[in-house]
């Protein structure tokens, strides 16, 4: 309390000083600007070097053909863009990415919410389950990939043995296009769940209990309570999680690299993996810069749509 008072007094004093300065023809904002520069400068400098310059350089490179050393040699204008947007394999990648992103986001949110809701129940041993549900946060991508590869292995894998035991034909999880995508989606959702669960669980805890009590007195059913109390109350969290998952799944790389390497038949060759392949395997820096620019635009559009559409449904 004392301190606060002292601060506000200080503030008053300084603002009075400024006033008197104005009358002396001295610009008070000059000092503010200097401070702003001092405080923002370091981060601006870092952003400029590590974000803005690479961004501009990427746009620049996207207009060139590059040689083996990655230097731009032939200016081709928007030809790289045209080549990509008319290439059927790129369009396939684009569609695959959309399917992947949408499937992963929706499944992660729904399953995460179900798990979080279940974990709020006060039953014996619940803390064990809470730990298990959030455990995937501590699993690294490479470990997860090995784990899932073992499950999906066509000859000695867990799933194929289960299928054989049940007299079903085993599925070639990682070699048939449709199933490969399914396998990647399953593993990504599993990876994402820990984080989503934790966030949702926290949000559910913060919904005031009095609301449910009031609803119970009114005789509202459990499902009515969920859709009319829980969902609106945690909608900001759902909004946050949906944006994070969406952007993260656009950028997913590790699981794909380790599990399918973009195959079979490019079914899981998502945009980011393509960028990596074109730049660091094929040395096609120009083309991969073009792909990066297109990906950035797509993510920007999606985020914009989410802010416009979803935000209206969010009750803060």
């Amino acid at each position: 309390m004392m301190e606060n008072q002292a601060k506000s007094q200080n503030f008053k004093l300084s603002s009075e000083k400024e006033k008197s300065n104005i009358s002396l023809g001295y610009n008070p904002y000059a000092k503010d600007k200097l401070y702003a520069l001092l405080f923002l400068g370091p981060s601006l400098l870092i952003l400029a070097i590590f974000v803005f310059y690479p961004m501009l350089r990427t746009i620049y490179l996207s207009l060139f053909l590059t040689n083996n050393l990655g230097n731009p040699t032939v200016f081709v204008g928007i030809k790289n863009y045209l080549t990509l947007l008319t290439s059927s394999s790129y369009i396939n990648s684009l569609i695959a990415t959309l399917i992947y992103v949408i499937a992963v986001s929706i499944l992660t949110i729904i399953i995460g919410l179900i798990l979080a809701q279940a974990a709020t129940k006060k039953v014996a041993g619940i803390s064990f389950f809470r730990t298990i549900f959030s455990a995937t946060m501590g699993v690294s991508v490479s470990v997860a990939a090995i784990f899932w590869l073992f499950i999906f292995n066509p000859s000695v894998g867990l799933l194929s043995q289960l299928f054989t035991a049940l007299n079903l034909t085993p599925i070639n999880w990682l070699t048939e296009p449709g199933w490969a995508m399914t396998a990647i989606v399953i593993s990504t959702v599993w990876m994402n769940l820990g984080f989503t669960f934790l966030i949702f669980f926290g949000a559910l805890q913060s919904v005031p209990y009095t609301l449910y009590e009031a609803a119970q007195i009114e005789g509202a059913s459990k499902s009515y309570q969920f859709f009319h109390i829980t969902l609106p109350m945690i909608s900001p969290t759902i909004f946050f999680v949906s944006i994070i998952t969406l952007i993260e799944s656009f950028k997913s790389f590790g699981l794909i690299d380790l599990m399918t390497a973009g195959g079979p038949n490019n079914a899981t060759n998502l945009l980011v993996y393509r960028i990596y392949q074109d730049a660091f395997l094929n040395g096609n820096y120009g083309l991969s810069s073009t792909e990066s620019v297109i990906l950035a635009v797509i993510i920007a559009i999606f985020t914009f749509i989410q802010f416009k559409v979803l935000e209206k449904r969010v009750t803060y």
Partner: protein
Amino acid sequence: MKNKKYIYSIIVVLILAILGFTAIQKNSVQANSRIKIVFWHEMTGLGQTQLNEFVKEFNSSQNKYVVVPQFEGNYNEAVQKILNTHGTDASPALFQSMDVSTSQIYNSGYITPVQKFIDQDNYDTSKISAVARAFYSKNGKQLSMPFNTSQPVLYYNATLLKKYGITPPPVNPSYSDITRVATELYQKSGKKVKGISVEIYGWLFEQFLANGGESLANNNDGHSGTPTSVNFTGKVATKTMTWIQSLIKNGTFMNFGAGSSAAANEMAAFLSGKIGMFLQSSADISQLTSGTKDKLGITYYPHPDNQKSNGVSIGGASLWISNDKSSKVQQGAWQFVKFLMTAKSQAAWQVATGYLALNEDSQDESILKNYYKKYPAAKIPGQQLRRTKPNNTNSGIFMQGLIQERTLTQTAMEQIYNGSNIKNSLTEAQKAMNSYVTSNNLANKISQK
């Protein structure tokens, strides 16, 4: 009290640091009197252990040079690092680079061809495998020294074939020989054991063409000039893919897909007796012999019916001498290369890693003889290597963008394995590769002027 403790511990740390520093300085003074040869390699596991052993031996065998080995991650990453550090203090004097980067490294102009040192020393290269030498040479000039070298071969589980009373494939099998064994195994095992797997791997595709005597790129696979177009749709390519599709149709084929997991899954299936045969690099031998009690069988790479096998090319990597170091340093690098190529080193190398001994005289080394006694099948890859006479179609493809070529042929293989029309898939891949070759040539010619 607490402060005092802090001060004491700081003093102790300082003293230790000073002692450590002087020790380092002493060491570097000692090293400075010898010429330092920085050697970049990409070997992991057994290969790395053996390579470090060689370095130790070389360093203690003389006192003029000291080789400093540095591990540089995987092959692909290393190529970029080599090209981007050239001319700086960080660059290596000697480096290992993978087979498919040969044309790219050569075109960078950053290397001294080892031919220069071979001529200076009148070094006898005739002892070193001709097929391996041909892969890393241009117009009869040796660009780099072949080092870790493997051959594609067919592995089979001899115990499993015996169990079902199946005659093993001949040493130099044709496609229909393999079909026979695969089909018999699948039928006689009550469809429990699959006959064969061919990983979706561009290298194997290249080898099918090589063994059938078909060029993959024009200008004789790039040996008589920069390729301007590729050929994926030739007779041999079509025949091979038709053969594989027929195997898939009769159920004896197992598809493990592409990528890093495919080879591991294939290996696991073979070791657990779920498939009878598979095509892979001869460098897998040590993993296979240690992984199962079943007897391992090996044959040459299969060839199309009704024609002789042309011989396959090699895989692996070679050693390059960088031209941004002084001639003394380059000379030292060459001395180390010669050391690695001796009969003794090469024999030790094959026994430790499964890569083939390239020096003819290695076959007389006792260490290799004992190894063959223990694993008779391990002889086969070396025999295949020595019987092959190098020509334009089995000496690798001298072209930039081979990684892209592999990605594209792999995509085509994936489509074909899943039942697509062979001609359409191969034509599509060929078209994409041709447009890559055109723009890559355009982009690189200008930089070279």
